[in-house]
């Protein structure tokens, strides 16, 4: 027994070996652990930076007297943009979440970039490297916000038999994924007359049908802002953004009411305060896009009243 333990060939690990094994294991473990963490963090950083960059680039889409503005964004790697919307007070929130493709695999990140003054209408998830954006003002009857429509360059929309004003607008926009003729087979068809299409628009009825979903739109002075919103976005996103627009609308009407008080001090004797309050109450009843029809006439009336004022409110 004693001879066995005293033999040089027995399992006798010297201090040097033991130290090297333990520290080597620690170094390897730390290197692998930190490496994976750094790659994960770098993915999240890239997603956050790209998301923020997109949100910032939406600022120039604010229109003044032009009817539409457009821009495009190109991202180096294939990106999945998730459009998230929440309608809590005071103005709801527009959130973008980006996942990018790395080594043929989506990097799932939990980074969300939010803004309160943007209204993006798109599918819940859009994938691509290049994204087209255009915006139009939403007037009801005064300007409430700019609506931004975001589509992937990979998704080609084919508008079949659109009304003349829509056709002219699409031609003026000159956006390469919004076509009127020579549409590729795999394009998303948008019909304005009856037909077997992916999206059916009943223009005069203010109704867009997408599969089983029905979305309603309306506008004043032939504004098609909500029609485009209905075409390019999911029903959930659309309804949520309508709620957010109504929240902002209510604040703006308070602003005009207060402005009128200031104007009265200047000497403008007009007073449409009671009409504004009544209209505001009517807007409070809007719970979905379908309810917009019920306040359209009120909006038209209030616009006529404003035009008759000595000191215009908007």
């Amino acid at each position, binding site marked *: 027994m*004693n001879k066995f*333990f*005293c033999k040089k060939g027995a399992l006798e690990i010297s*201090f040097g070996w*033991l*130290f090297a094994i*333990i*520290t080597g294991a*620690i*170094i390897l473990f*730390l290197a692998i652990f*930190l490496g994976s963490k750094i790659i994960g*963090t770098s993915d999240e*950083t890239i997603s956050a*930076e790209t998301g*923020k*960059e997109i*949100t*910032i*680039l939406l*600022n*120039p889409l*604010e*229109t*003044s*007297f032009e009817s539409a503005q457009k821009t495009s964004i190109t991202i180096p790697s294939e990106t999945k943009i998730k459009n998230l919307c929440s309608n809590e007070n*005071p*103005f709801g929130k527009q959130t973008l979440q980006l996942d990018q493709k790395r080594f043929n695999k989506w990097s799932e990140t939990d980074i969300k970039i939010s*803004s*309160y*003054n943007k209204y993006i209408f798109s599918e819940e998830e859009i994938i691509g490297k290049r994204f087209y954006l255009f915006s139009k003002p939403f007037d009801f009857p*005064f*300007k*409430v*916000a700019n609506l931004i429509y975001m589509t992937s360059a990979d998704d080609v929309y084919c508008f079949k038999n659109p009304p003349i004003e829509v056709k002219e607008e699409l031609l003026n926009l000159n956006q390469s994924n919004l076509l009127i003729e020579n549409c590729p087979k795999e394009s998303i068809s948008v019909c304005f007359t009856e037909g077997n299409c992916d999206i059916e628009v009943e223009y005069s009825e203010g109704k867009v049908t997408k599969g089983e979903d029905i979305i309603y739109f309306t506008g004043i002075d032939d504004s098609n802002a909500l029609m485009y919103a209905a075409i390019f976005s999911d029903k959930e996103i659309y309804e949520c953004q309508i709620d957010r627009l109504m929240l*902002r609308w209510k*604040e*703006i009407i*308070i*602003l*005009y009411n*207060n*402005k009128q*008080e*200031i*104007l009265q001090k*200047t*000497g*403008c004797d007009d007073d449409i305060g009671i009409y504004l309050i009544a209209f505001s109450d009517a807007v409070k009843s809007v719970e979905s896009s379908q309810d917009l029809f019920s306040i359209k006439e009120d909006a038209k009336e209030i616009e006529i009243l404003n035009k008759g004022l*000595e*000191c*215009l*409110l*908007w």
Partner: protein
Amino acid sequence: MVNRNHQRVLHKSCNPTGSRRFSKKGQMKIQQMAFMLIAVILLFALVIIFFLAISLQEVRRTATMFEEENAMLLVSKLANSPEFSCGNSFGSSRANCIDFDKIFALKENLNKYQNFWGVTKIYIRKIYPNDKVDCTEENYPNCGLIKLLDKNVNSTSFSSNFISLCRKERDNNLIYDKCEIAILMIASEDKG
């Protein structure tokens, strides 16, 4: 305890003299290894802390850069947003025109708009007369500076843009549109 005794027995049996010197040397080596391991771990911890500090600094710098970029792009377009714009109140539609009456009404009711534009300061200053008196209910419209949003946080330098500041003015019984040149100034949060 049992193991230590066993070790001693082994050492004694392997060492013909049976002295305790060999056992003490072993203990010294174990202590040496423990100290070395602690030193290596500390070294790694320091390197990681240093790396994280640099990364965090970089992230903060990037965040501030984005905020500045946001302020710069926002200042060129904010005048056209519905809370600021003149709309058709002063005849035809105008670009970069801010309705002074509307802005003053907004200042009095700004609570809900605190985070709306994602910036920390929004000032509007008349160019002439160069009056730096803050607008209040008492001195409106005879004032030169309207601090619409003024959050008490570290802010970047202002990005600015020239705008026309219009309001209704009364001269005897005549009400007319009065437009003055002003600067719209926006600052964002300095996260660095």
